[in-house]
């Protein structure tokens, strides 16, 4: 290779508002060819809006997107990018095979229909009407349609929403087998496990901008850190301003909770400079970290307390809050 490969996606300074809602606020993203990137964030974080702009389905208020060095429309005209959308995009009154044939007819060259059906794992239901397919089967059909043009970049917008566990596993098995052939994949999800299990790189979005970006391990490190709790007289609350601003501090009913990446310094500070006592230091898990990084509001004392319990519940609760 003589020159560096063109990035699969290069987005700079993306802004998009809908009325007063600022859905995307200055988002920069570069994805190199061959990467499998998870776009992780709670509902309403701006994932779908960003994906729509990458696909050219909507245009940014400000900022620019290029796909393999082309405009989104140009990349679509070249069959370089395809997407699996969350819902819709299927005609109910035709069969699975006809849907793929029809999609193939939109391109001047395409992969053979049988091959695409096989790779998406739906050859056995090829003659089934789309309306008779389960949610998971429809999603694999969308995946098959996306494979038709053999795109360099595949974008999946919350592809497993509404699937049962088995459907989700089958779907990811198909995607994973495909990504191993070198295709660039970007998928939006609000399932942390999916991002962790299937992505090389996790991009965390919150309120329309990126709050963390790195390998799953880096994001875990960045996010995991530790939580320090201590009893602290109310009169000494002001002293907590002496902590590094990166630490998240909450005070409730005589107990202070500090999330930090450097628990040693926090403990030293609390013991040397305040009257804190009954210290506790707990390692965060990834779920908590994700919630901490993407939550719209500071974590309440209530949620912090429940975080000691098996992790999923706290996360689940935080998600419900985000949805509401």
């Amino acid at each position, binding site marked *: *290779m003589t020159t560096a*490969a*063109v990035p699969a996606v290069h987005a700079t300074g993306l802004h998009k508002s809908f009325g007063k809602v600022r859905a995307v606020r200055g988002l920069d993203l570069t994805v*190199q*060819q*061959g990467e499998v990137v998870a776009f992780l964030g709670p509902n309403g974080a701006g994932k779908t809006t960003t994906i*729509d702009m990458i*696909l*050219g*389905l*909507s245009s940014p208020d400000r900022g620019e997107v290029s796909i*393999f*060095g082309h405009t989104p429309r140009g990349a*679509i*005209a*070249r*069959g*370089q*990018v*395809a*997407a699996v*959308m969350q*819902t*819709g*995009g*299927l*005609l*109910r*009154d*035709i069969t699975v095979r*006809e849907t793929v*044939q*029809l*999609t*193939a*007819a*939109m*391109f*001047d*060259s395409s992969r053979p229909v049988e091959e695409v059906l096989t790779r998406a794992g739906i050859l056995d239901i090829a003659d089934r009407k789309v309306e008779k397919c389960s949610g998971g089967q429809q999603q694999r059909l969308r995946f098959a*349609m996306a494979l038709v*043009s053999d795109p*360099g970049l595949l974008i999946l917008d919350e592809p497993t929403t509404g699937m049962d566990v088995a459907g989700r596993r089958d779907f990811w098995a198909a995607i994973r087998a495909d990504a191993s052939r*070198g295709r660039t994949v970007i998928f939006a999800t609000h399932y942390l496990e999916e991002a962790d299990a299937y992505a090389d790189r996790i991009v965390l979005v919150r309120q329309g901008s990126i709050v963390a970006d790195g390998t799953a391990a880096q994001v875990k490190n960045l996010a995991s850190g530790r939580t320090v709790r201590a009893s602290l007289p109310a009169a000494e609350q002001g002293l907590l301003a002496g902590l590094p601003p990166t630490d998240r501090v909450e005070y409730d009913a005589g107990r202070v909770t500090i999330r930090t990446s450097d628990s040693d310094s926090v403990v030293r500070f609390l013991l040397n400079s305040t009257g804190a006592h009954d210290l506790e230091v707990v390692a965060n898990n990834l779920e908590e970290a994700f919630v901490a990084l993407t939550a719209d509001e500071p974590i309440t004392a209530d949620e912090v307390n429940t975080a000691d319990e098996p992790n999923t519940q706290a996360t689940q609760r935080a998600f419900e809050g985000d949805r509401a």
Partner: protein
Amino acid sequence: MTQVPAIQDRKPSAGGVNTTFLWIEIKRMLRNRRTIMFTVFMPAIFFFIFGLSNKDKLLPNGHSYGQYILISLTVYAAMTAATGAGSQVAVERAQGWSRQLRLTPLLPGAYIAVKAAAALTLSFVAVIAQFIIGAAAGVTMDAQTWLVAGLTAWVGSLVFAALGLFVGYLMPSQNVMQILGPALAILAMLGGLFMPIEIMGDTFGQIAKFTPAYGIGQLARSPITGEFDVMWIVNVVVWLALFVGGAAMAFRRDTQRV
């Protein structure tokens, strides 16, 4: 990591108008029972109810009732078929298919062209079905009359394919034909397809001349009436322009909104 190959523009030839696309569109329409009911059975039933018993009588204007009603109902069948086919874009929009198509190199113009071709295919089926029913019921016309009337009803249905597209892009409804069906019946009545303009009375007779089914009906019946008026062609052209313009506007509005 692979070097990005120099990928050429992969727009399909003719922008995406091809036999696979057209064939699947036609199959979809023919599978749709409601479409077949509107385009074949309803006009046929109208013919049996209104035309059959009187087919050998003469109209007040001196023409054969059977020929008049057969040609008129054929125009009605063709316009219903074409409108129904065009209006399917409403269903496709509701199902997110139009959005999906925007992720392919398909040109919007090609999509419209295929829709129009599919509409013409369906209206062709409607015309043939109506003629077979009429001939079987004993309506006789000379070859030239069959041909001119059939061609006029068929080609004229393009006006209504455009109307179907227009309404299909305006309304998100899955049941757009439930609104269009009665509207078409009114237009057919006003256009003289259910009864001769001459017996409508002055006011309605004047209004009729400005409705979209009028010109096509008059032209289709001209072989049996022996009359011709250039205003009939003007009627067809103006309505075609209005509906195509409306469809183009509604289409643009639809694709800009995300």
